[in-house]
């Protein structure tokens, strides 16, 4: 069997777990103390109006004019207007931070105030959205329900399809990997200070499908190799072989998918289209996370569960036959494992690094 990679994913699983937990911990601390999560008006309710205008006006002046026209507190964001052919065009977006949707009249007041104060600057509403708070909360719960429903259906499907390798455990671990990815996606939104909106839900659902897809391809190999390699091979051996055989495929598919989303991201960055950036960037990172979590989180965890339940089974059976011999052997195995891990840890750290894996592919081609 041609096999390019010989990485012991099972033995190094602790390193992977630590990396994931470490990243999450750092993000969590940052999220709590430095960068608070922003939630879009789609969920909280509120109003955002985006104006375009030409010429140079001091930002302070715009703020004061708008603030005088309404009682609500407004948050201002300024940007260049790249969509316009006029090189000196700007955008200002006004976020009305009270949770109620403002009326059309209130919005008109602000627009009128602008045109009165800056008659030459051609103020125009480019985009506006206004959502009632109750509607927003409703939308949030609907999204949550969609995610939960998808997760349940996926566990169910995996459980049925992979009965032979312990369907339920496989399904649950696939979902653990999923939760890992979803947390990562959430942190991408939080760290880049993008507000949680319907893009967030779309990305979450997409990663849901993608991550499970990756995990399933590996499970499929395990199921096949279980038959081929016979009952003597341990779960860890079968799994390691399967993961390594699938690795090229996983990397290649991730590359093609990343290239598609990546080109969207690059173009969106060049053109400065916020709504697409907040879709493509978390998606990119979610893809990497999805690929990583299937191999480095879901599968090793599944092996641990499998070994644990197998051991219990074996213990029960042996207890029936003879009570004395049962407990020693597994303990010895564990000790050997630990000493091995320490010696190999340094080597494998390099191998587990994504970049070096990609390099390897290109060198061998």
């Amino acid at each position, binding site marked *: *069997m*041609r096999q390019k990679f010989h990485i012991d994913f099972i033995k190094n699983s602790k390193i992977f777990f630590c990396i994931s937990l470490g990243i999450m911990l750092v993000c969590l601390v940052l999220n709590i103390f430095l960068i608070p999560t922003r939630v879009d008006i*789609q969920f909280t309710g509120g109003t955002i109006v985006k104006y*375009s205008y030409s010429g140079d006006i001091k930002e302070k002046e715009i703020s004061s004019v708008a603030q005088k026209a309404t009682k609500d507190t407004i948050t201002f964001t300024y940007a260049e207007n*790249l*969509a*316009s052919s006029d090189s000196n065009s700007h955008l200002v977006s006004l976020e009305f931070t009270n949770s109620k*949707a403002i*009326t*059309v*009249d209130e919005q*008109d007041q602000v627009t009128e105030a602008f045109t009165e104060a800056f008659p030459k600057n051609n103020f*125009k*509403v*480019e*985009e506006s*959205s*206004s*959502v*009632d708070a109750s*509607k927003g909360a409703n939308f949030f719960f*609907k999204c949550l*329900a*969609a995610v939960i*429903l*998808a997760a349940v*259906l*996926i566990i169910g*499907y*995996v459980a049925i399809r992979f009965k032979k390798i312990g369907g339920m455990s496989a399904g649950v671990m696939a979902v653990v990997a999923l939760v890992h990815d979803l947390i990562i996606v959430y942190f991408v939104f939080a760290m880049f200070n993008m507000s949680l909106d*319907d893009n967030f839900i*779309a990305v979450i*659902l*997409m990663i849901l*499908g*993608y991550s499970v*897809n*990756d995990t*399933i391809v590996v499970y*499929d190999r395990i199921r096949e190799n279980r038959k081929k390699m016979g009952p003597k091979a341990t779960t860890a051996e079968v799994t390691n072989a399967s993961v390594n055989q699938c690795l090229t*495929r996983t990397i290649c*598919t991730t*590359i*093609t*998918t*990343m*290239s*598609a989303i*990546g*080109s*969207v991201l*690059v*173009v*969106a960055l060049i*053109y400065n*289209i916020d*709504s*697409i950036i907040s*879709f*493509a960037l978390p998606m990119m990172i979610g893809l990497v996370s999805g690929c990583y979590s299937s191999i480095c989180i879901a599968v090793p965890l599944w092996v641990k569960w499998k070994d644990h339940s197998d051991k219990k089974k074996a213990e029960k059976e042996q207890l029936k036959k003879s009570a004395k011999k049962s407990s020693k052997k597994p303990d010895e195995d564990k000790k050997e494992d630990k000493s091995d891990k320490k010696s190999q840890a340094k080597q494998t750290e390099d191998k587990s690094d994504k970049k070096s894996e990609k390099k390897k592919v290109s060198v061998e081609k």
Partner: protein
Amino acid sequence: MKRIGKWVFFVVFILILFFAYTSVFGIYSEYGDYTITHVKGIQDIRWGIDIKGGVEAVFAPADGIDATDDQMNAVKSIIDLRLVNQNVTDYELYPDFSNDRITVRFPWKSDEANYDPGEAIKELASTAQMVFRGGTEADGEELLTGKEVKRAYVSNIQTQNGEHQTVVNLEFSSEGKKKFADATSKYLNQRISIWMDDTVISSPEVNSVIEDGNCYIEGGSNGKGGFSAEDATALANKINAGALPFNLKIESYGTISPSLGTYALTAMGIASVAALCFIFLFMCIMYRLPGFVAFIALLGQLAISIMAVSGYFTVFQSFTMTIPGIAGMILSIGMGVDANIITAERIKDELWTGKTLDGCIANGTKSSLSAIIDGNITIIIVAVILILVFGPANIFSALFGVSTTGLIYAFGYTLLVGVIANFIMGVFASRLMLRSVSGLKFLRNKRLYGGKKKS
């Protein structure tokens, strides 16, 4: 393994190129000044308001009044009527009966430079003004207003000839009863007209003096015809709208100017071409011949996706395409080659064991199928949930009401179409092509399939 004819590859290849070309550019013929569309291309796609620019608003009864289903239907019909009056024909209306909400979405009117969407929304939500006038002119005597109408409903009556006829019944309030009796006696055998805002919705002839406050309007003209059930319901709804006991409030609204949207569309176009180019190079370098075949299949997949959106085959309705929809399409391009990658990897594995080329292709395609199916079904699950949950009428309608953002729906739709197209092209067609092309002598070198150097 049974060989597949060498010509199969060329037939499939040309077919895919044909569909890809026509799905993008369409087929048109010019007949004098007219352009006749035979097959719809990209330019016929109906773009969503986030691309074309437009307005979305959600209306609800003011003061938290709990409206009945009939009243909601009435609200819907009045908004319908007003949109048509504003010359907006390409609109979407979603009533939500469980939560008493009505969502309206319509594109920016391209012919008006100074179109004020805020004004348009306000107009839609304004209180309906229904007036009964003598005669059919707008300056006719004002007989009754909507306040004096209790309700309108559809029923079937038997005429003197014994025929069944659908009619619209009117019930008046006690005040309206008196006024209507006076009006019918004054305008006996003449016409009175019912005005909604500034439009005549019906102008029946008075056949008898009606004193009990119950009358019905027969359809048709000059004694002929009669209402179709739909027309009758539409009229009843309109009259009910004029008699609504509550005002509408604008619960949420959004507007996008067209310049911002078309700009995003150009960006997505560039992105998809760039993605295709990269994938072409990547697949050809990584997987050589199977990679090339995979790319052709990918073009086919993309063509199917575009067709499903543009209404290429008239049996499928055209679909409103939004930016997330395009994102879903681009994503399915990226994932589309996955099936081919899995298969090509398997074929490589087989080749390294030193079997014959045909055997390797047969084994490789066979062993990779279960992974492809299992993997794609999970994506189908996600896509279907997106469609069912975020569609106009959805499985959670009873719990959460109709959705305000239909944008995610488009994402789910293009993703689902992409996966299905992937089964047709990436699995079925590309296998056919690969097995056929492997019959060509000059393409039988194992290296072209990723095998060892010496063989």
